[in-house]
């Protein structure tokens, strides 16, 4: 039994730290783990996706259409872009923050504001929250990634203390307290 989690967002939002945390945590829990990341050009403000898969034995590092148990999105439009990868009965956890892509900025396209409602109407399970405000409350707008990991933690069968220990092992010492607070705000949301 393999669990598949996608972490999606806009290049520069900190998805690599989130996947590093998740990878560390799941490895420490004794699972076989694969994490596939994106480096290079698309990190410059483009749409980015990280795949995390764990279980007794994991072969493929990627997640295809209809395969993800969870999609954790740092931005609303990106949640919609990757929604097709969610499996029947899976859950999207998304930040409600809206970051306009260049075609929207230039006026060549419009941002589909109500896109999450469209998905909900089709029966897609969505947990949406203003993770940016919670991150700022924790002390840094950059902590959106850890706030969302806090929300995800509620759905995974791993105790919160184990997550907090993984945070201590993953982030730079001076940011540990801030990130623990961000995690707690997501977990308590």
């Amino acid at each position: 039994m393999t669990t598949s989690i996608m972490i999606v967002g806009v290049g520069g939002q900190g998805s690599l730290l989130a996947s590093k945390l998740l990878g560390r945590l799941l490895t420490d829990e004794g699972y076989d783990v694969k994490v596939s990341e994106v480096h290079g050009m698309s990190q410059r403000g483009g749409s980015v996706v990280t795949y995390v898969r764990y279980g007794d034995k994991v072969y493929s590092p990627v997640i295809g259409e209809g395969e993800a148990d969870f999609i954790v999105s740092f931005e609303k439009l990106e949640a919609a872009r990757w929604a097709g990868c969610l499996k029947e009965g899976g859950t999207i956890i998304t930040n409600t923050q809206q970051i306009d892509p260049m075609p929207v900025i230039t006026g060549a396209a419009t941002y589909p504001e109500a896109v999450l409602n469209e998905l909900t109407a089709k029966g897609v399970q969505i947990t949406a929250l203003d993770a940016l405000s919670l991150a700022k409350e924790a002390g840094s707008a950059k902590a959106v990634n850890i706030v969302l990991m806090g929300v995800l933690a509620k759905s995974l069968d791993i105790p919160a203390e184990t997550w907090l220990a993984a945070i201590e092992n993953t982030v730079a010492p001076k940011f540990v307290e801030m990130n623990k607070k961000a995690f707690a705000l997501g977990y308590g949301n």
Partner: protein
Amino acid sequence: MKKLLIGNEAVARGLYEGGADLVSSYPGTPSTEITEFLAKYDENEIKSEWAPNEKVAMEVAFGASLAGGRAVCCMKHVGLNVAADPLFTLSYTGVNGGLVICVADDPAMHSSQNEQDSRHYAIAAKLPMLEPADSAESYAFAKAAFELSEQFDTPVLLRMCTRIAHSQSIVEIGERMQVERKPYVKTPEKYIMMPGNAKKRHPVVEARMQKLAEYAETCPFNRAEYTGDGKIGIITSGTSYQYVREALGDSVAVLKIGMPHPLPQNLIRTFASKVEKLYVIEELDPVIETAVKAMGIDCVGKELFSIIGEFSQNTIAAAFGKETALGKLPDSAIPPRPPMMCAGCPHRGMYYTLAKKRVTVLGDIGCYTLGAVPPLCAVDSTLCMGASVSGVHGFNRLLGENSEGKTVAVIGDSTFMHSGVTGLINIAYNASNSTVIILDNSITGMTGHQHNPTTGYNIKGDPALAVDLESLCRSIGIKRVRVVDPYDLKACDVAVTEELAADEPSVIISRRPCVLLKTVKAKPALEVDPDKCRSCRRCMTLGCPAISFKGGKAVVDATLCVGCGVCKQLCAFDAFVGGNV
């Protein structure tokens, strides 16, 4: 100790444990982190360097091998084109200390200009190649590669691909081997490749390939897994192996190839004889398939599995008629989100100037390729590292006065060091009236901030000699060399106008450090005074991600704006206020 490592870190760990003495590389996605991780080890154990280009890197590694050490160079697939010259003759000389060449392919072109398959180099240069399928194999193959290199007196190619290089999986790491360096003994007939000696070395190369082909039969990296009922057998390698097992489980037999060149012919024949129907599943070109067919064995390959892009478990499942799940998508169109130049990117001011003046721009490889996308659309061509400078010369030689006054080459500082300077020598020597703009952001940007010979620091971040670009350009015969600040639109306009008008070759150095550098401090964000904004949308032509239009007026996203002030210079109504510019 068990660790979760990306493939590239696993390669670095394997090379370290295998006794690497030196690494020299040029950064290139998806290969860069191998060298970055090697550079974290103590200089007394491994000497690590960024070279100006891949050819230099491979020749440095050759020198270290010749001297008796275990040497490494790493590059992306197109980097191997640059290093192909030493590669082919290194096959003839062989090695003294072990020599491992790591090359990372990029199927689906996540961060590349083409989708070439490096396995062809192994065949063409007559070299053994290893191809891991996860981080544990990346580690094990890298560690074993030096022994293989020394045993068969050959450089060894280690082929990575994006999904292996940038996927993390679990690795059981060990300790560094203590390897005694080999003595250097002058051996002209082995290392001086002039015709008389090379003629004697070619048969040695062919004999070595024979021995390697025999070794391939028992090489532990090739593995027949006789699962399933014998109806279907699949020959596969690299990341495709994982997709096959994910999609088909134990229902099929699999011959997993870890050494794609030379192939184990007997193993393949035996495997083929034990299954009813044989498939070859490999990303990119039909390299294994062609070899299997040449052996007279019938198999299904590229007629079912694309030659283009990456596979996934769904690709394999669908090809075998298995049902794959469908997800739900919203009805609204989802606008694409292409990568773009960052807010405050120093390249933007110069590109705005070139777009406004409708200059033809021969571009190059780096972050600044993003000047090609809307709304700037300022680039006319991007071919390979250095092609802007050589290309503008050819363009101007053909069109003369019709193009010289309105055509430029645009190239980054690292790319100029890589292979732009030779093109500039050509401009001076063959006297075209060409203008070259060096976008000097003081770092190798796209690959994630590596130092280069112009930055003043080495791979360890220690101070190093910095090439003086102005002096370099003058020394090769370019008399008109000027420096502008790309945040100053007026200065950019004057510089471009004057240098295009000049009746001789010229260089404009557009100099300002990358805003993502930790040493660059952001200035306070600007704001838009909505009473002053006349909705002319002129600021929108910059393509700055921090500026958007809401309710008919421009607005600045304070979380993205770094206060560069380029928009402020552009606005005819002084609507941009605040900041510190």
